[in-house]
């Protein structure tokens, strides 16, 4: 896993992981690992600063809750309306970037060549 690759898309990844419901840190790590077949292995040292950053930006909101199994409370994050907008915008940017790259590596001819 290229750490820099992940860093560039970490926000999008985290916002998307909250799209269908609230999650706490440990669940997000497990979800990301499962959904990417182990390709992205999120470390806590990367995850929590990123979640705090997204919370400061107002895109996610965190709240402490006690799980059914008991024990210390975990901080559960939810996507805010602003966060849903941001997810949409980032997804669009990512799709545009993706199709631009596909346009080149897909073998299309460069303008000006025969």
């Amino acid at each position, binding site marked *: 896993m*290229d*750490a*820099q690759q992940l860093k*560039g898309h970490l926000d999008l990844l985290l916002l998307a992981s909250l799209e269908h419901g609230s999650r*706490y*840190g*440990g669940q997000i790590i*497990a979800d990301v690992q499962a959904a990417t077949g182990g390709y992205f292995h999120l*470390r*806590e*040292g*990367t995850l*929590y*600063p990123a979640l*705090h*950053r997204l919370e*400061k930006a107002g895109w996610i909101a*965190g709240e*402490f809750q006690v*799980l059914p*199994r008991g*024990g*210390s*409370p*975990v*901080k559960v994050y939810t996507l805010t309306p602003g966060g849903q907008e941001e997810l949409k915008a980032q997804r669009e940017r990512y799709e545009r970037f993706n199709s631009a790259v596909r346009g080149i590596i897909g073998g299309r001819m460069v303008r000006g060549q025969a």
Partner: protein
Amino acid sequence: MKVLRPNATEQYIRQATRGLSGQARRDAQTELRGAIEDKIWRFTLLGLDAGAAQSAALRDLGSPHAVAQGLTRVHTLPKAALGAVLAGVACLLGVQALAAVPVVRAGSNPQLRRCTFDDAYLSSFPEGAPSSLRAKLAEAGGRALLEAKCRNFWAEAPAPANQYLRLSDVVQALKLAQVQVDPETVSQGILSLTFPGQSYSRPLDVSSSKIRIEDEDYVGVVELLQNLRFNTDLPLRLIGQVNPVLEVGPARLQLGTAEYPVDVINIYSEILVGVLGNEILNSQIGNHIGWESNPSAQPSVQRTDTSLEDGLYVSLSNELFIRPTEAVAISGPYYLERTGVMRSGTVPLSDPAVQIAVVDTSDQLSAATSQKKMAVLVYKLDTSDLRNLKLTPVPASQIKVLPAR
């Protein structure tokens, strides 16, 4: 059966939130506590007993100092109560106007060495400050004594690396090179730059590293360089060791001053953690690398082959696995990466007091760790192009570790 050591988790949490204070610290500690418990619970689901699950969880989290760095960068710090104004600031500005290369002032994170035992500090303990601490502070002159002890401790500790650059100086230096800087996003820590001859601007987002030092915005030098390395195609070089000159396309910036010097060794050390992590395919090693600021300057490794040139070298050692320090015994060990300059054939790359064997590959390093043998792997570092840092392994036959003193 091994039992849980509640202190091990709490100590980890305390160290991992060291850069924070007040409510931010309390919340981060509560969150980490829940996260660590959850991790331990998930390990027990895999069949580990409580004690083994706790060890595995803390080990997997990695260095608490790395976590603290990440968390500290995100949270805006309160005004640093440093008191003294930088001496000679006016003089510095005068020099800046005359110097050929604009100077960018540097500093270190003030939160790392706070010695103020006030109410804000006391309330940052999640379960309240220890009664022994409260008792000492209640004594006449107790607080002054504790703060003096604290300052003495930090006075003897290695100086913190000055890894933060004054944002306004960075902007000024770029403008002097005719780089356009969008003023609207600067205060957020986002530099939208248009270099001469180019029609578009590249946003460099270093906002996550923005901190306040004495009422001024500073940003992380490593974050800035990583952004430049990965988000631009400008030629990028660092020239010199102390207060190096950064060349970014046509722009030149001298990083650091005599008062708060920047050592390029600390910059490379921090960047190389990521580079080495990607290079080394053995994830046992790759995922557990850490560095120390301002390591010993005493030469400890010597070339036995004269074809090996002077210059920058990097070592990766397993000493913290074999002889853990107090802090490492709690958080779990990591492979210690050091960067050093070879001059006349010798370079400081290991603890001079320790006898350690040189190995050729990361697999040999990993094997040595399993056999509880001290071992070190050495690389030659090519920094002629910062966008393409090259690490070349040095065969063990070409170097030797000097006898321990």
